[in-house]
């Protein structure tokens, strides 16, 4: 596998750090006037999402990570694995495990186009679209007339996720949800 030297470091570069694939968020050249040059790097671990900081002596290098991102459509889950289909004409299926799915499992709507990150051809993370439409499977009946107060109540979605919704929402309603915050946006016209 190729490697990158400190003078090639830039945001977006994918490298291996302590065996894990990471993406560089920032890379800054630092050097005392009368001293050794370094590159200060902020990485995001692509598996855990954690941010790591390291400083490398100038001239050091890091091994490149074979990481690619592809768009796939979500199909279904059997409870252990989540299945996606490629969007080209091959209709290949890809299965992601719960570690790769992470919190995305709460917001996977059928046929939603997701971005999947592959490391050495294995899916390691799934990013759903920013907004998805999900149906309410359980919520207490709202009290009429309370809408003006802007009160909220919990509602369970068909993925199993529980979010706060306005009081007028009923079982069977389809909601537009922001997957980045897990917040209710509106009642879908669907």
């Amino acid at each position: 596998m190729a490697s990158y030297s400190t003078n090639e470091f830039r945001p977006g570069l994918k490298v291996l750090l302590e065996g894990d694939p990471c993406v560089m968020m920032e890379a800054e050249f630092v050097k005392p006037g009368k001293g050794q040059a370094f590159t200060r790097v902020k990485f995001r671990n692509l598996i855990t999402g954690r941010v790591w900081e390291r400083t490398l002596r100038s001239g050091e290098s890091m091994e490149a990570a074979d990481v690619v991102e592809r768009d796939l459509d979500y199909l279904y889950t059997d409870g252990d694995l989540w299945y996606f289909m490629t969007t080209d004409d091959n209709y290949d299926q890809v299965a992601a495990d719960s570690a790769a799915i992470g919190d995305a499992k709460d917001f996977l709507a059928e046929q939603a186009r997701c971005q999947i990150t592959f490391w050495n051809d294995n899916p390691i993370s799934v990013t759903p679209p920013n907004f998805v439409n999900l149906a309410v499977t359980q919520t207490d009946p709202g009290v009429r007339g309370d809408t003006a107060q802007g009160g909220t109540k919990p509602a369970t979605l068909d993925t199993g996720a529980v979010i706060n919704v306005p009081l007028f929402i009923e079982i069977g309603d389809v909601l537009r949800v922001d997957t980045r915050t897990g917040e209710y946006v509106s009642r879908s016209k669907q």
Partner: protein
Amino acid sequence: MSEAWRPTAAIETLLKRAEFLDRTRAFFHNRNIVEVQTSTLDRFGSTDVAIENVEVADHGVLQSSPEYQMKRLLAAGMPSCFQICPAFRKGEVGRWHNTEFTMLEWYELDVTLDDLMATVAALADNLIGPQPVVTKTVFELLQDSFDIDPHRPDEKLCLEVASAEGLQGARDLHDAIDFLVGSALAKLGSERVFLTEYPSYQAALAKTNQHDDVEVALRFELVINGLEIANGYDELRDAFEFRRRCNSDNVRRAQLGLPPKSIDTNFEAAMAHGLPECCGVAVGLDRLFALAMDKTALRDVMAFAARGE
């Protein structure tokens, strides 16, 4: 059409920069410090292990600072003097670095290092507004942050502490100390700090002195927002010691696989002739102007900073 022809700084910033340049010159004129100009191109470069000169085929090197030539002027009888000039350091490009940058350097005869520090603080007050400067020794900085004594360093311990702080690829004590000092300074936030009493192995061209049983370099740096702004010395006057330090630079260069550098024999001869007692300081003027204008990168205050990144 590509937009790459455009200046990296806004025109209004460059107009403000012109005002700051005027104020800087007035600051020195008011102190009877005369402006000089030396050559950017010279036969010799620096032996400093951490500085690579930009070489010009068949002509010599672009100066990494006007230090040697300005001290040759002093040895020949020039009174206290200042210079604002381009300086060049190969391979130094980043948010706060540019291969070519503007250096303000000045020398004052018959002053103490404390006097010079007071003048540096006054210049910072003048350009970016008044704020007190805290003085810390390198020992205090590293002792407080990492429980390390930079004057009697344990190389293995320093490398371990640096590694735990996130340094990768350190080769020796110098790497570890440079990294730890930068790391500790970054934690001081927006304070203005004079860092003083450098370990003798970081004396560069400063005199050294015995202080509480350890040899310390009579050198200071002004650090603002974790950024090195100025580097000043009580200037070394001993030509033999100059040669000894150049030779030890070249030994370390060999250890690191770097080519040896010729010793500036003109400068050496000037020292042998007699450099007057003086203190001198170099200021990264682009950085100071950036702080004065609340900018966060050199490219925002330089007309044509290197692109890239």
